[in-house]
């Protein structure tokens, strides 16, 4: 699929057709998930109603990490194979990952206050997720810090790959250190410890968050490609002869610039 969508023009065709379906599926999953999370699922026997915060906290935490893995993978592909869409994907995903991480931190804090008695502690899990948030912000700032977009993209890719070391730290922080944050309860040997009445809405919300990410990723990648094409056309409008002389054909020129940028 990666190679079949390699060509930006083909990506625009396929993603344009997929976008309404992705958006519709996101709306349905989130609607079902929210009703289940806020109305149908029972209160927890220890946490009471406050457990309902988990239906957004856990999916946003999953996305916060997952999106970073995707950015790191795209950065690797961009550095090694110069795939024309890899940088576009990584840069489109970064603000989404930052948003999920912010939601994860904020909802965790709002749950921690009544359950742990504190908004925040410098616990290993919380701290490593805060570092993840700053990795996202640093990546976005670095990519935009260069006049030459390709240099910014390369610097960002390197930062994204170095930052990957934070992900296993997040994952295993609850096992390596005796922290306040509870250990894994879904992906653990011996199966989930959560009852189906809560696990099902949790998974539906996670699906909804995943679909929301996919929808916005496609939307933002399309935006970036449109803006790139518009920049090439503006150059052509200002100096059509120079552009044509350099690239022979304006259409080929725009495509060549898209590949290079």
């Amino acid at each position, binding site marked *: 699929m990666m190679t079949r969508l390699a060509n930006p*023009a083909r990506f625009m065709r396929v993603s344009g057709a997929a976008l309404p379906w992705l958006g519709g599926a996101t709306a349905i999953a989130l609607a079902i998930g929210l009703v289940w999370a*806020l*109305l149908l699922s029972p*209160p927890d026997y220890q946490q*009471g*109603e*406050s457990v*309902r*915060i988990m239906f*957004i*906290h856990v999916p*946003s935490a999953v996305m916060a990490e997952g999106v970073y893995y995707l950015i790191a993978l795209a950065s690797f592909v961009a550095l090694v194979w110069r795939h024309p869409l890899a940088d576009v994907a990584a840069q489109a995903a970064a*603000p*989404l990952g930052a*948003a*999920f991480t*912010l*939601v994860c931190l*904020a*909802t965790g804090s*709002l*749950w921690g*206050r*009544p359950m742990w008695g504190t908004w925040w502690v410098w616990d290993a899990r919380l701290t490593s997720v805060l570092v993840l948030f700053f990795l996202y912000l640093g990546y976005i700032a670095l990519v935009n810090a260069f006049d030459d977009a390709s240099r910014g993209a390369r610097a960002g890719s390197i930062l994204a790959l170095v930052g990957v070391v934070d992900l296993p730290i997040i994952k295993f922080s609850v096992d390596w250190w005796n922290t306040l944050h509870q250990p894994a309860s879904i992906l653990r040997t011996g199966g989930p410890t959560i009852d189906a009445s809560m696990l099902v809405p949790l998974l539906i919300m996670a699906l909804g968050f995943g679909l*929301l990410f996919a929808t*916005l990723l496609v*939307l*933002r990648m*399309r*935006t970036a490609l*449109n*803006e790139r*094409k*518009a920049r090439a*056309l*503006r150059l*052509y*409008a200002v100096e*059509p002869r120079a552009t044509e002389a350099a690239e022979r054909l*304006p*259409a080929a020129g*725009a*495509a060549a610039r898209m590949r290079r940028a």
Partner: protein
Amino acid sequence: MSALSAWLAMGGYAGFIWPAYGIAAAVLGGLSIHSWRRYRASVDTLARLQRQTGVRE
């Protein structure tokens, strides 16, 4: 207490649950609206430039 106000009270955790959902809706909803607006703007700008330059791909 009616069923609705009991539900809104969230067993005493209303002050934590509703802000949590509110923040999630504001952050993710805001980003969705922003992404959509920028997408529409990029489509319109590109169409205008393609009309002006006569270049189509």
